[in-house]
């Protein structure tokens, strides 16, 4: 590694001892020659020391509480899986029955529409005839005109 071969990314790996021995030696030799890279490495070390944020202290009691919570949640999930299996089983049964019924020969053939003789169907048919409704309005207006005529 020559003096001109400054490679900052190698300094990061050098700091974390993540270079193969031969490459580590090359970087060490380069650092001995290059004051800019030495300064760079010093600054890197300083920043990374700042990034040491310490550890989160967890007391025994807090750890126990956490463990209890996880255990309870684990038991809860186990229990909730049982109804899920039941649901899956019943869904599969229903699907199976449907498939059996839909087999050729078992499937009921579509029937021709039956005559809708019920009075409610007759009412609906009549409501769909809007012309007749218009006529009803006219008749109402005619009655009103006649009443007004009678009154003078």
């Amino acid at each position, binding site marked *: 590694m020559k003096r001109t071969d400054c490679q900052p990314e190698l300094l*990061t790996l050098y700091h974390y001892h993540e270079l193969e021995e031969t490459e580590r030696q090359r970087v060490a030799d380069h650092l001995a020659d290059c004051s800019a890279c030495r300064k760079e490495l010093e600054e890197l070390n300083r*920043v*990374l020391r*700042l990034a040491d*944020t310490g550890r989160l202290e967890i007391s025994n009691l807090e750890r126990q509480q956490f463990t209890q919570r*996880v*255990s309870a*949640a*684990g038991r809860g999930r186990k229990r909730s899986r049982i109804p899920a299996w039941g649901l899956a089983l019943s869904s599969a049964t229903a699907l199976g029955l449907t498939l059996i019924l839909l087999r050729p020969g078992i499937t009921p053939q579509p029937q021709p529409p039956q005559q809708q003789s019920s009075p409610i169907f007759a009412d609906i048919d009549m409501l769909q005839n809007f012309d007749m409704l218009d006529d009803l309005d006219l008749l109402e207006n005619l009655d009103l005109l006649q009443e007004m005529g009678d009154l003078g």
Partner: protein
Amino acid sequence: MVERSEQILLEQARAGDEESFARLVDTHAGRLINLGWRMTGSREQAEDLAQEAFLRLHRSLGSFRGDSSLSTWLYRTLSRLAIDHLRREKLKRKIFFFRGADSEQADPVDIAPDPGAGPGEALLAMETGQRVRRALQQLSPQQRAVFTLRHDEGLSLQEIADALQLSLGTVKAHLHRAVTSLREELHDLRERIGS
């Protein structure tokens, strides 16, 4: 590889012994919550993520073969959960134009001054903690995961690559970018504190 005592606990937990599972949780809870805390910056989030990692272990007990150590498995699971969490948070911030966590949201433990330090030093320590925390928040989720696992947890880059399912080259690149970003963010602080 899973240690013998841990292997026994795993076997017992697999057989439905809840006490053994609780002992496994108790053994790994501290380190796992710490990892979550470093990655998310929030103790509450860290506990939620750790809980989810343990619940995934509980669910996978039957299929856990013990090819990697239990702690590696848990680290890997929590790291992925944390990356997903950070990505979602980042997206939420983008949507709501919310510019990261402010100082009032900072974990009190993180910004608490050293009780042995004088008032000036305590203030500086508090400011340093906040600045470092903010600088870490500027990193991408993967950069933050790689940096935390290497810098704080001491995992090798190869272990990190395995845990995060990334190539070694990508892990190196993430680490370098994370360090560069921290240097830029903490430039003035570095000069004020000196060596």
